[in-house]
């Protein structure tokens, strides 16, 4: 629907200054918005790729050596941080993070009940200092997870195991994204988690 209207003058009319100025005034006050654009006009090639993309993609793959922890405090795996600095803007954001990890050789001292667990989670950090935790996953060191001595099982850890998690998260409006980390911890310090490699992928979508 056009916002610049046609001339109302016809032959014989004596135009006023307002009549002559009208079309210029309409154009100066015109914006492009939903009322004067047709459906399906915007195609991929109309949108910029830098600096502000509709989807920001981040990833981290780390395979050097192995990482160990016997801490009940969550720590970043391989001490790796995925930097993703994005300044808040007028749009709403949805952040989707997926991760997978491969455990290596584990050490089990205690595996009864909640003592025999290890867990991963994603930590999302913002420039304001705000942090949030998403995509958790918890696993058992051995095939036994209950506090029972029956059946009698050898306390053998399940090693070289594939672990994974994923979650979508609506970012609070106005928060600037800073980093993403995969953290891990054990539930009892008598046990040791060994991680061989990690992958993290993240998609920040503007809407």
């Amino acid at each position, binding site marked *: 629907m056009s916002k610049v209207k046609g001339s109302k003058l016809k032959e014989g009319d004596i135009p*006023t*200054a*307002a009549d*002559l*100025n009208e*079309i*210029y*005034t309409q*154009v*100066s*006050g*015109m*914006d*492009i*918005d*939903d009322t004067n*654009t*047709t*459906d*399906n*006009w*915007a*195609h*991929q090639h109309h*949108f*910029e*790729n830098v600096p502000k*993309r*509709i*989807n920001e*993609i981040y*990833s981290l*793959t*780390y*395979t050097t050596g192995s990482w160990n922890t016997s801490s009940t405090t969550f720590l970043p795996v391989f001490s790796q941080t995925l930097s993703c600095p994005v300044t808040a803007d*007028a*749009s709403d954001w949805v952040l989707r993070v*997926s991760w*997978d990890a*491969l455990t290596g*050789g*584990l050490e089990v001292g205690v595996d009864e009940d909640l003592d025999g667990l290890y867990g991963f989670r994603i930590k999302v950090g913002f420039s304001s200092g705000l942090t949030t935790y998403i995509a958790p996953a918890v696993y058992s060191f*051995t*095939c036994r997870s209950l506090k029972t001595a029956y059946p009698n*099982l*050898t306390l*053998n*850890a*399940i*090693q*070289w195991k*594939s*672990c*994974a998690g*994923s979650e979508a998260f609506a970012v609070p409006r106005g928060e600037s994204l800073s980093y993403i980390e995969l953290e891990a911890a054990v539930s009892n310090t008598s046990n040791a988690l060994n991680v061989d*490699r990690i*992958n*993290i*992928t993240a*998609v920040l979508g503007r809407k």
Partner: protein
Amino acid sequence: MSSYTPPVNYVDGTPLNQTQVIQAEKSLNDFANQQIIDTDIPDQTLSGYNLQGGSLDIIRNSYSFLTCLVAGQSQIDDIPSQSYHTSTTKNNNQSASIEWQDISGSGVTITMPQNGEVIIHYYLHAYTPDNSVVAGNEGLGNGKWNNEVRLKVFTHSNNTDSIKSGTSTFCFEGTGGALDSKDPDAGDVQASYRSQMLTFRVNLTRGQYTFMATANPHSEAVLYTAKSTMVEAFYV
């Protein structure tokens, strides 16, 4: 558009000047014919209806949106179908004569109209029956042979494979004598009956690609079920 300023302001009682009329019409003409720039469109003024509609490719099970393409396969709800793999050779810490065998049902093919960033997710299930051929293992008995799975990216334009490091997952034949470098440690069931998941990113140029899981088996028999594979290619 907010960036236009009329060069002439007509006033009642002042005769029209030809030069002014030409100047005014030319400025309007020039402005209307220039490119639309970012400041001409205020924030939050367009709707989803303005965007190019998506399209479904039934054959490839993919959907193209304005900003990305999503393709995948899922057999989670189906009756599981397993693909059979067997080792080509069994040697301790095998590093030579490795034959990668693609896992049936895990593949997804996409066509990218422009360069983009691709994220692949897959979920497999692996099962290795115990190796009953004890004597065949050079007399060493059931061993901790590992079956490795990685992500493979096939580029159609030049028929080349790329098997990605950093994507390895494992299941094992058993928990007998230490014959391989990786020790599953746990009982036979935990060693040989495993879910395997991956998320991974690659940057690709315009073209056609197939993504699949591929196995390097050491066991007499290992059975894989490709539960689901999803590929997302982002352009903008």
